[in-house]
């Protein structure tokens, strides 16, 4: 058993061609709820956090040449939305548990990384 971080990346631009009606928004929220409750119910949800949906700040370099800019990198078209911390036996299982994460239905991607026991 180990902990895995499911990092949620999503495009900065919301998809233009998809209209989010109230009914649809509710359906998505209910899907998220069902997914997290499933993890919680199986005692696999160790934590979660949402990040403010904004580019934030970027630091680079040190000393005199340190630069702070509005993040992220100019080329990036994605934003990290947040993460879930789950427990699983291995990567395969972590991936299985991530498959029905609702953000995957809306152009997002999930990066799964094992947390190292220190």
């Amino acid at each position, binding site marked *: 058993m180990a902990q895995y971080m499911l990092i949620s990346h999503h495009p900065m631009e919301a998809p233009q061609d998809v209209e989010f*009606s109230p*009914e649809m928004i509710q359906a998505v929220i209910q899907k998220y709820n069902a997914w997290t409750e499933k993890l919680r119910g199986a005692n696999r949800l160790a934590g979660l956090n949402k990040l403010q949906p904004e580019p934030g700040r970027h630091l680079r370099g040190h000393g005199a040449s340190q630069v702070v800019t509005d993040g992220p990198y100019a080329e990036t078209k994605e934003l990290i939305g947040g993460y879930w911390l789950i427990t699983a036996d291995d990567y395969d299982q972590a991936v299985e548990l991530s498959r029905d994460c609702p953000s995957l239905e809306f152009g997002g991607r999930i990066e799964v990384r094992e947390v190292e026991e220190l």
Partner: protein
Amino acid sequence: MQESSNSRIDGLVDHLFRHQAGQMVSSLTRIFGPQHLDLAEEVVQDALLKALQIWPFRGIPENPSGWLVQVAKNRALDLLRRESSLQSKSQELLRSLSAGPELHPSSGALDDELNMIFMACHPSIPRESRIALTLKTVGGFGVREIARAFLARDSAIAQRVVRAKRLIREKQITFELPDPRELPARLDSVLEVIYLLFNEGYTAHTGENLVRRELCEEAIRLGGLLVTHDASGLPKCHALLALMLFQAARLPARIGKDGELLTLAEQDRALWDRRSINRGFYHLDHAAQGPEMTEYHMQAGIAACHAAAESHETTDWGRIVQLYDRLRELNPSPVVALNRVVALSRVYGPEAAIRELEEISEHAALGHYHLLPATMGELLSELGQIEKAAVFYRQALDCPCSDPERRFLLKKLEALTGRRPRGPGHPRSEI
């Protein structure tokens, strides 16, 4: 309407967002003014999207509606400070928005929603746009949802909504209920829109999508709003509501296991929604108070006869004929006449009905209406005149009709040419 099993777990009843959106858009339109309908929608959409961002992580709040209202209020206040076009009203709006936890005055969100429907049905707005605007605002439907329901393109619906909003700005249409002189006409147009909505959901005009239940439910919900308010709770509103409730009660029984439409005679009445029927009778009662007798009254009465009958055979056809007689006085359309003939055949037999039917056939308007030859075919087959009946069924198949209707006619034709029919069938005039 049943709650899905999820709603008990996550606290979100079916269509909560849709209905909440409808309420909030209505109230914010009152607060910002009808010319700022776009802003009202923007505020509401922002609030819903915020919920979409936050609730998956923070969980669904104890009071989801309250959360949405609070966020919408904050967003509205932001907008107020930013939008110069709202500056002139800003003091009163700030007061309006800051007071109390709700967006609407204590008399209720009901008033705001009702005002919204009445505004959407203003005579300057073309009928299609009235329907689209009503569904988009009070209904809380998305453009795509409306388009799918009406088998139209997204762009067509979007255009109708844009047009309605533009007319509201140009004609400076106000949010209040029309004054007493205009109210009756406006109310009639509201009833018409609601009934159009219901019919769109209830029947199929083309293709496979037979029943669009959500439109029916929305029409019933809007009808329910109407009758709760004094200014609009007239007997004819109760009549329309009763009619819709009786018809909607039959929805669970209308589709056979092969996906085809079942006639009243074929439907398993045990599947009819009793609660809807009871509500129907409650409103039918209220419809009876007062002197006005409208088409809705007659149609509701006819639907009530069916609802009250244990079986097709024991239906009070005599009373139905009487009601059709009166309906025909109010609406001499050939379609009404046709439906009357069918009821008549139950009381006076097929020959009498055929004579009446021959008279109606003269009517040009029925030229390509498949039910006319289909009804003739049915009556003739009851008399045992198989060949003649088959001719008429084939004629019916030449007329434009939906796929399920086509299958129904083919089924009838095969039954005729395959073997002699046993007992009385019933033409599909009422389902």
